[in-house]
Structure formats: C-alpha cells, structure tokens
C-alpha cells in the first residue's frame, strides 16, 4: 500500500528520465542522505565513526570505481589495490610538495594521476578479456605496490617507507592529521562519496554508460553499432581508476592516518572485487551494500560471542568468524547470484504488488 506509484504521472521527458522516477524512492534517498550527514556526527561515538563508518564509505567509493569497470564495462580487474596506492601516494606527494593546496583538490588531482596510470594498464584490454585481463591487471597490482615500496622518493625518503597524512584543513576545519575529529573526517568522506555516487549514477544512465554496457554484453555487436571499443574500454579504466585513486587517498588521509604499501596489497583488490560481486555487478546501490557487508559483518561477528556472554578465546573467535563469514558469502551467492542489490530490487517489486499479489 505504501509503495504505490498509482497516480504518479510522468508528464515530461525529464520526469520520465529521473534517477528515481517513483516519489517514495526519491524521498527515501533524500532523507537517507540527509540523515547520513546529520545523525552520525551527532550521535555516533568515535568508535563507530572511526572504525566502522569511515572505512565503509571509503570502501564504498572503491567498490563504486571497480563496479563501473567490472560491473558496467565488463572488464575484470584485480588491480584495484594498485590504483588505490597510486591515489594515496600521489596525494601524499602533492600535499607535501604544495602544502597550501586544499586537500580536496589534492584528492581530485590524485584521482587524475591514478586515472592516467589506469589508462596505461587498460591498454591490454583491447586485445585480451575475461580472466586473461584479470591476470594482466594483477600485474599492475604487483608492479605498483613493488614500485612504491622500492623507490624511496614516493615516501619522501622516510626510513621506514611509511607515508603519513599531514594536518590539512577544509574551510578552516581540520580534516586530516591527528588533530582532525572523527566527525570532520566522516563528513568529508561522505560528501565525496555522495558526489561521486551521483556522478556515477548519471554516467551509467547516459551515453557513456550505455556504450560500456554494450561492450560488456557483446563487444562485436557493440562495435557494429558504432561503439569504439578502445576508447570506451580505456574510458572505463580511466574513470574507474579515478574513483579508486580517490578512495586510496582517503584511505590514508581520512582513515588510517599513515600507511605502508602492505595496506594496498592484493588482498585489498580481492576485497573490493568481493564487495562488487556480493553487492551486485552493475549496480550503484550494490557497491554500497557490498562494502557494508564486507566491512560490517566481520566486525559484527567478532562481537556476537561476547555480547551474548560467551567468553571465547580470541583465536577461536577469529576462526569462527572466518568460517561464518565464508558460509554467509556462499549462502548469499546461492540465494541471489546477482548480489544484494538484486535482492533489494526483488523486494521493491514485491512491495509494489503488496498486499495483493497475483
């Protein structure tokens, strides 16, 4: 009853092409975004902000980036961690070289640097695809991490090879460095992810996204109808790497505070790929759902035994957590191979008919 579109008439092209054609959706999203901006900084304690919500937002952004590439353009990539590292190290080098530049601009430029690197590693995608491309991008992952570990210039010759986020402000509010409050970091991460999610949504609804999907579904057919494969694929690599690069910079500057190359190892690439698969390939919402699943569920599982009064040894607890987490992933993929986003879509379709199903 609540979720009815009866009576909502689309009288113009604009209303027909809106992101959320149904009023209920629109309001829910607007309220959710408003709530995300207002509620956690006021209500949540530092643990929630710092250890759960900020990493969730950053991983969402990375998953969003990979989803554009893998979900929409069909190019399987395992180089996400490497591209995130490019963003992080670029942001570090830029902000230490130009301390006066606003950190948000630094993030964007770092994203552009990552995009350039992504373009470079996207070139093989014209000739190879599928698993072969995954292996080629894996090379990017290993090469980039090795490069940052090997060449001391990237870490400003720090003896340990660690990069540290220096204190920087946005509109006079400290957002990076030790003095920044968790709320300030959270709002910054949220603002960035909101803007980029909107941009991604519009991108995939338009000409670019349609050409990506055409390539993904059948590249030869796409070429015949006039989509230029090289340009389209490279664009996907570039934009995806841009998103990942910004996420990598945020990972160091807003979340960890300092990082070594180990933070960007191949495990991170897999993690983001899992987020995309579990959340739903080719879905903007799916990127968020997948990130939430991968970030929140392990933390939740760690806390369950203690909260019900079971005082298990930590090692056993960790092993149980890994087993349950693995089983949950398998369960979700069996129940809905298209990811959590698809589950949500089915729920909405059921809601439209509720309470009078056929």
């Amino acid at each position, binding site marked *: 009853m609540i979720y009815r579109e009866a009576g909502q008439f689309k009288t113009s092209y604009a209303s027909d092409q809106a992101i959320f054609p149904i009023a209920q959706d629109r309001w829910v999203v607007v309220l959710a975004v408003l709530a995300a901006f207002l509620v956690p900084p006021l209500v949540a*304690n*530092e*643990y929630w902000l*710092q*250890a*759960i919500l900020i*990493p969730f937002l950053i991983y969402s952004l990375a998953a969003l980036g990979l989803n554009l590439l893998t979900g929409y353009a069909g190019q399987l990539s395992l180089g996400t961690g490497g591209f995130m590292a490019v963003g992080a190290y670029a942001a570090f080098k830029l902000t230490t070289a130009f301390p006066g530049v606003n950190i948000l601009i630094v993030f964007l430029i770092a994203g552009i640097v990552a995009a350039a690197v992504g373009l470079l590693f996207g070139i093989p995608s014209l000739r190879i695809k599928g698993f072969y491309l995954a292996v080629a991008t894996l090379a990017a992952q290993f090469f980039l991490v090795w490069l940052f*570990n090997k060449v001391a210039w990237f870490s400003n010759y*720090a*003896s*340990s*090879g*660690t990069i*540290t986020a*220096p*204190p920087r402000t946005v509109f006079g509010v400290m957002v990076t*460095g*030790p*003095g920044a409050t968790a709320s300030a970091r959270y709002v910054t991460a949220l603002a960035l992810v909101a803007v980029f999610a909107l941009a991604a949504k519009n991108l995939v609804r338009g000409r670019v996204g349609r050409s990506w999907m055409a390539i993904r579904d059948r590249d030869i057919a796409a070429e015949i109808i006039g989509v230029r494969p090289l340009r389209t694929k490279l664009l996907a690599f570039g934009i995806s790497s841009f998103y990942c690069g910004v996420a990598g910079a945020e990972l160091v500057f807003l*979340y*960890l*505070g*300092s*990082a*070594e190359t*180990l*933070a960007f*190892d191949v495990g991170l690439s897999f993690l983001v790929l899992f987020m995309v698969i579990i959340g739903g390939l080719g879905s903007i919402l799916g990127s968020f759902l997948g990130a939430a699943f991968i970030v929140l569920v392990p*933390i939740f599982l*760690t806390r369950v035994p203690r909260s019900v009064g079971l005082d298990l*040894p*930590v*090692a056993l*607890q*960790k*092993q149980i957590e890994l087993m349950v987490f693995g089983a949950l992933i398998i369960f979700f993929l069996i129940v809905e191979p298209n990811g959590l986003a698809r589950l949500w879509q089915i729920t909405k379709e059921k809601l439209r008919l509720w309470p009078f199903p056929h």
Partner: protein
Amino acid sequence: MSVRRVIIGLLAIVVMAAPAVASAQAKEVFIPLLVYRTGPYAPSGIPIANGFVDYFSLVNERDGGLNGVKLAWEECETQYDTKQGVECYERLKAKGPVVVNPYSTGITYQLIPKAPVDKLVVFSMGYGMTAAADGRWFPWVFSFPTTYWSQASAVIRYIGQQEGGMDKLKGKKIAHIFHNSPYGKEANPTLETLSKQLGFDLTLLAVDHPGQEQKSTWLQVRRLNPDWIFMSGWGVMNQVAVKEAASIGYKMDHFIGNWWSANDSDVVPAGEGAKGYKGATFHAPGTSFKVHQDIVKFVYDKGKGSGKKEEMGSPLYNRGIVNAMLSAEAIRTAMTKFGNKPLTGEQVRWGFENLNLTEKRLEELGMKGFTHPIKVTCEDHEGNGPVLFQQWDGKKWSLVSDWIPTMREVVRPKIEEAAIQEGKKLGYEMRDCSKAG
C-alpha cells in the same frame, strides 16, 4: 571479653574496612592487548600474548594487583593487520585504557598520532618507530629498553668482536635480510651509516609479506656468500629463512636474527640444520628464574594459564613477561606520585617517563639476571639498554655473549635528527624537558 571491647573491636574493623569496601568496585587498571593468535604471524604472536597474560595474572593472583589495584585486560585479534589493529584500538579505547602495546610496527605507526589526542601511552618495547625514542618530540611514545637502530649497532659490534676487533670488519660482506615493511626497514639506515664508517660491504635483501617465498633471496645469498647475515624477520618468515639457510649449508653461527627472529618456533621446523643459529635479545631465555616458578605456582597450578606449561620460557614468551612487567612497573611508578588508585593516561605517562628499574627491584620481582636495569628520562624514551646474544643448540637457547653495549654516539644523533623530521610531519613542537614534572 566484655561487650564493650567487642563493640570497639567491631567498630575498629568497620572503620578500617570501610574505605576498602567503598572503593573496591572501580579499582582496576585496564590494558588492551592487541594480539595475533591466527594468521601468518601467529607463530610469533602466540607466545608473546601468553607471556603477557600470564604475567598480568600473576600480579593479580600473587600480589592482588598493583598496590591493591587489579589489572584488567582484554584481548583483540588483529592478525598483525594494520586495519584490524586500528579497529581493535578504537573498540578497546572506550574502556578507558592507560597504556597500549601494539605489538606491530605498522599498528604503532597508526597509534602514534592518536596517542596525544586520546591521552594514552603507546609502549612499543623494542620496536615501532625508532625516531619516537626522542621524548622531547614524542612524549606519549616509549620504546625502551632499546630500539632497532641500537640493536643494529650492537649486532655490528658483536660481529666485530667475533671477528677479533672492529677494524677487522673492513671488507667483510654482511647481508641484511629484512621483512619488506616499516618494521624490517628500520635497521637499514643505521647499517648503512655503520657500513660507511667501518668499511664493511652491506647488502640489503628484502622479503615481501608474509615471507613464505624466499627462493630468490637465498639464491642471491648463495651468489654473494656473505660473511655474516643479519635478519629482521617476523612470523612465518623466520622459519622459512632458517630452513633455507640450512638447506644451502650456510654457516649457521654466522646467521643472526634480530630479537623478533629468534624464537623456538623459528628454529624447530629446520631441525638439526638450525643448530648454531643466533639471535639478539634483551633478556635471558629459559625458565630458571623465580618469576617463572611463581607463574607456575600462582597461575598454571590454579588452571589460569593461557598456554601450555611446557611452552614457557621460549624467548618470545619471556619477552611477553618483560613487556608486561615494564608496563606494570611504570604504572607502579606513577602510583608513587598519584596514589594507589586507578590512574589516568596522563598520570601513567608520568610513570613511564620516570621509570627507574634498578637491579634491586628486579631481584624483588624475581627477575635477577633476567633482564637489564632501565632508566627512562624525558629526553630519552629508549633507555638505551645493551643487547645480549643467544644461540640455538638444537634443543634450547643459551646465552653466548655478555651485555653488548650499543653505539649510542652513532645512534642518538640520528634519532634526534629523525625525531625532528617525523615530529614536524605531524605538526608537533619540541618539548622543553627542563620543565617536565
């Protein structure tokens, strides 16, 4: 006995007991333990965690806590992973801890900027960022009894002694095999400086996380045939390295691990081949000390031990004891100034900074000959303790050297230089130690 006497007696008891009853609830000091009992670093992480917990249990069981204040702790599994470590730290921070022992250089790097904001001591005993040993720039970080840089200088001095004099080092080939992370890289600058000063050839060989794959490293070792190998490894990397060295027939008594690379679990898998392997340390191995007997008596015999009784006395287990003891003694020092009650992070920081662990105190703790006395000051959070060397004879570790002094004249100026660099990065200012309380 008259009724009056009984009443007076009862009153006296009540008056004396009342404060104890009233303040019995909150008399605890909370210490978070970031442990890793799973994952590729578990072989090193388990004995440390066990030693830690057993010593804290001992303090509670034997002494009833520190001056009547019980120690409370909670473990959190990090898998030696920085991100999980940060999550653990944030979660346990809510319980009002006073000191955190990260047990990972990576996690220490994350916590150093947070410590002054959260008013919480970061105690990275013999690891972490060496630059933070300058207390004028990093008031909240402590790395005594010694640091990686001092350790490296002591290792070179030891090698010099074995060769028959520091001048004999000229032209010798020394290889440093290190974990390719902030931790493993720590010793490199010191080794490079010393190689220039003393004229030995230094080769740096990196091993990537987690360290199971070392074939190419050992091919290089074979080609190079160094006179000495120094290793900064951790977890599974150590046993692989020792096995590889044994399989290429490297002279094991010229292979020295740093103090995180010389535990039972590192040499046992290589069997006979590991015989002769050496390691740096700052405390004795084995269970021949009174503190171990006490742990058996007060903890294991009551069924409260955290590991197996037979596994006591391994170097890393003993390291856990030393670390727990130093944390406890620092809190006790703080109590001499602020009273026997649960303290704040700031008060405990004072305790760390004024810690003076004498020979006499070590004897009282049942640790005579177990480790070295330490004095910490405002400038010097390193304590600059000397280093011991131990050797594996196929069954157990035994000490093969006296206390080898570090090269403070080389290391300290470098620490001060690095502290300025690292401190400025975080926007710190130098503290005036003459005004520190």
